[in-house]
């Protein structure tokens, strides 16, 4: 099973540095919208998520221009010539892990040639490489269901 980048919700503090480093390394700009990893907040949990290299990736199957192909190692390859940035893949990705570049092509995590920059820089060591089966060990469901506040 392919390993992908995920954040340990017990550790991630939501600082967003992973998004900044990713967009800079890949696109030369500090810009969360150009990041291949996305930090979100669910309830009280911070989660950073990237492409999970699914076994039957809906983005590849459903891309209307056939711009996406999956390599043997699971990584999704984007053919910039074919991709017109329609955003269909963004909608079908169950993990919200795809962004569209302003120059209109999909941007998807490729593990930086097996040297993921976000993992190197994460200040809390929250980012780890896991597969689908190991994932739930790192999700704190209790935090996700909570919110700030409450009644006195």
């Amino acid at each position, binding site marked *: 099973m392919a390993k992908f980048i995920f954040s340990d919700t017990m550790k991630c*503090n*939501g*600082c*967003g*540095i992973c998004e*900044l*480093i990713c*967009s*800079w390394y890949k*696109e*030369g*700009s*500090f*810009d*969360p*919208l*150009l990041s291949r990893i996305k930090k*979100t*907040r669910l309830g*009280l949990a911070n989660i950073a998520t990237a492409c999970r290299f699914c076994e039957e990736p809906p983005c590849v199957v459903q891309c209307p221009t056939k711009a996406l192909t999956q390599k043997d190692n699971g990584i999704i390859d984007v053919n910039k010539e074919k991709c017109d940035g329609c955003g269909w893949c963004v909608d079908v990705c169950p993990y919200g892990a795809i962004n569209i570049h302003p120059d209109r092509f999909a941007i998807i995590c490729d593990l930086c040639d097996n040297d993921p920059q976000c993992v190197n*820089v994460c*200040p*809390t060591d929250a980012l780890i490489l896991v597969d689908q089966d190991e994932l739930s060990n790192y999700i704190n469901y209790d*935090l996700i269901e*909570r*919110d*700030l*506040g*409450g*009644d*006195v």
Partner: protein
Amino acid sequence: MKNIILLMIDLGSGEKYTERLDEDYIAGYLGVKLLKDNVGKDVEPLSPENLLVITTSPFAGLPIPCSGGIGIYSKSPLSGYIGESYLFGTFGDRMARSNYDIIAVKGVSEKPVYLYIDDSSVSIIRADKLRGSSPWMTEKIIKESLNDPSVGVLSIGPAGEKSVKSSTIYSDLQYTRSGLGAVMGSKKLKAIAIRGSGGLKPKNPGKIMDLYKSLTNKIAEAYGGIDLINNLVNYNLPGHNFKKASVEEKKGFTSLIDQIQKYKLKKESFQQFPISFSTLYQVDGITTPVTLGGIAIGVLNGIYNADTIIKAEHLCYSLGIDPLSMAVVMSLANELKERKEPISSDIGWGKDKESLDFIKSIVNDDNIFANGVRYAADKFNAKDIAMHSKGIELSIDAFIDKDLAFNTAVSPSGAYFGSKDFAKSHIYNFLGIYPAVHDFYSDEYIYQLYTSITGDRDFDIGLLKTDVISIEREFNIQQGWNEEDDMLPSRIIDELFGDKDNFLSRRQDFYYFMKWNKDNE
């Protein structure tokens, strides 16, 4: 440096315009200057003419650790002088990616509204449904209705809507001081949401990453493993209403810090903060940060039940009141009660339930304590027990440390944020650096960061300092400030400085050092 773009919004007329300002300054300085040029002595803080000014940090949106905070400035309803606060996290990041460096709001809207700034477009949206909701609920509803969980939001609670003078503006678990929430409320402005989609391309990103690593390591070494609340046991905290703590009070306090550990849920951070500075606590279905403010409510009022302190802080957050101010106002009420003054509350030292009721009642009509400690003490002829600087209720910091107390006295806003080095912290606040980390930054770092961002090697922090350091003071002088305003309550002076003469001579030396004379020439 890049050009600074001002967005001015008049909520009375609905008019909005933008203006390109002087390019040689940071937004914080230009924001306070805008206030100085537009808000004179005759302008009442809660009147339409007062401005609420929000400024961006030159370091926002970049991997520059524990920085990027926005500055919020206005004429304070508590002091009548400059009101200032700095909030960190998402709002500053999004603002740096929007088209605006300064957002200024004037006028009063006819109906409650919130502002939505989307890169360059600005909408004024009706907020009737948000009326009476807590700041965090307001944020949640706005994010849902904009269908965008990534927007940065500033919001006020019911206290701000009612212009309770110690109301706060809330964002990312932090709150403002200086009654800035009351100014926002007086404009019928419930919230500001901002979305910015611009990328930031500094001249030398590699160098910024190097500086990021070195600064982060230093900050992590000092703060990484520390629990800020737990750490308070190492300090000499005050007792009832800033009196020297008795042995009993010290015991109570230590037990409070001990107990509160049990309710800890998790540490929290903000955008651009590799190190966490907030901690969430939980009790009886309530989840809330506990800050120095909650602890102040405890020590100043003899409440040593962790359960009550968490609930008290949560109430302050929900209503949108400054817990540091609440702690002081409450202890004035307690001391008045002790003096048998006719106050309409069942409060008493160490009375848990009554203290929570006291907090809830702050939003009731005609509550004298809603006007702040200085006003309430005046009404009862009790100036001697009103613990404030320029009308801003004192933080317990001002008891723990002589330098912080002194800096609080001479701070133009009456609130102090930063290290022992006043001049340094003053400018670092304007640059949007988190007060707790000022000691880790240096002018050399600032120079390196600036030149890496702009490529301008002529940048001179010395030049910036001269202007930035006096602009808030110039604003105050225009409002009628005099030296007597740079003062502390005698309880603090006696405890920390021995007598008033010692304090005055230190103040004289300080003015000399800052090159501040009476006329501020």
